[in-house]
């Protein structure tokens, strides 16, 4: 475990192995998005109640899933950064915060656009909307703290502590808000017995969900590699790479 983390987390080796991953993930993302978007716009049936507006779900739901997933990735890399002091993990925290906030904002905005025709209002103080909004605030906190320090390594460690405290708090916030007020429909896919969604809608949704995951990973690799280069600009391996390229 230790060896694995140190090997794949060393800046130089990370930069090399992530190059190939980034390329393939980007290709897969484009392919999946093409299939998924085509399916969700032209193949999937309109909803019997909501009509064509249901198609925004294929963006809204994957984005909402990503908002939690990215937070988990961020908190996990926070633990890795604090325990093993891996530089790459420190960079990943900052990049995850920005990407996670974007996904959360995307889920909120698409949700508002979907809510207007369906509920008759852009916003209701419903449990799921509120906890998504709180999640956005938590991301803002991590971003602000991460950027507030002169030394980026200190900022990353502080952000890691905040992310870890947040991961304990998120379930509490979620349940407290849920008991407070609920209007949003229950989860349709993650039910244990049988999803209450027809298979013709489920398949495009799952394709889009995987596409969002690979999209996130390829962006994460791209951003973290760029950040790595700028932080390590005085290291010898970066100079070698620059020399090779010129």
């Amino acid at each position, binding site marked *: 475990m230790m060896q694995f983390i140190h090997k794949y987390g060393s800046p130089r080796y990370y930069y090399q192995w992530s190059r190939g991953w980034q390329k393939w993930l980007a290709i897969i993302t484009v392919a999946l998005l093409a299939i998924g978007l085509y399916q969700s716009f032209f193949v999937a049936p309109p909803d019997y109640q909501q009509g064509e507006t249901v198609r925004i779900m294929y963006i809204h739901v994957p984005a909402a899933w990503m908002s939690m997933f990215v937070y988990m990735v961020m908190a996990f890399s926070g633990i890795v950064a604090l325990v093993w002091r891996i530089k790459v993990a420190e960079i990943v925290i900052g990049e995850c915060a920005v990407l996670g906030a974007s996904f959360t904002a995307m889920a909120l905005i698409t949700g508002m656009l979907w809510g207007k025709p369906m509920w008759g209002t852009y916003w209701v103080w419903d449990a799921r909307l509120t906890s998504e909004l709180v999640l956005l605030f938590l991301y803002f906190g991590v971003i602000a703290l991460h950027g507030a*320090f002169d030394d980026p390594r200190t900022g990353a460690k502080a952000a890691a*502590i905040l992310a870890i405290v947040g991961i304990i708090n998120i379930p509490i916030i979620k349940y407290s808000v849920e008991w407070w007020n609920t209007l949003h429909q229950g989860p349709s896919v993650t039910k244990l017995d049988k999803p209450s969604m027809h298979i013709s809608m489920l398949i495009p949704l799952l394709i889009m969900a995987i596409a969002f995951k690979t999209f996130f990973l390829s962006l994460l690799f791209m951003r973290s590699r760029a950040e790595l280069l700028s932080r390590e600009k005085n290291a010898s391996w970066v100079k070698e790479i620059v020399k090779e390229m010129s």
Partner: protein
Amino acid sequence: MRLFYSILYRDLLLAIRRRRELANPLVFFVIVVSLFPLGVSPDKELLSQMAPGVIWVTALLATLMSMDAMFRSDYDDGSLEQLLLLPGPKVLLIGAKITAHWISIGLPLVILAPIMSLLLYFPTHAIGSLVITLLISTPILSLLGAVGVALTLSLRSGGILSSLLILPFYIPVLIFSTMAINASANQLPVSGYYALLGAFFIISALLIPFAVVAALKVSYN
């Protein structure tokens, strides 16, 4: 435990010697609560409905304003660094500082809140629940706030940033407390909310001092 008591005694003594600084958040609390009738409406019905939320949100803000005092002056004159170098568990030290903060800010708020609730026409039979929720929850506010202050200690403009970090974490406390007060105002059972708040307090008291120690280490780096 002697470490705990001596730090607690020191911090409380310091708080008493700086009475004026101590009073500021409390005056802030009184002024902000009395702004609401002026800003919204002096209507009796409306105010008594809003009272739990107004008092709770103002109490949150007053606690946040006072948060900086917990570590700031000790950080500036270097005594916090010396305290952290003491032998013995650092968690106890942090626990003592948080307790002292609660006694000097949280407890006065608990005493002031019932008086202010009368200004908002809050029904007198529910004042008991207001006091109980504040009594259980203000320690949670001090605990969570300590993490924010500890993380931003080495920054020049740490105060506003630490409020940004911590306010989202205050949401469960706010929700459970105001729900309990509203339930009691409507003569509904409230013990469930007290139990939840108590559980939240116990979890925070057990885990948060460790997070504060880690955050202080990052700040001293």
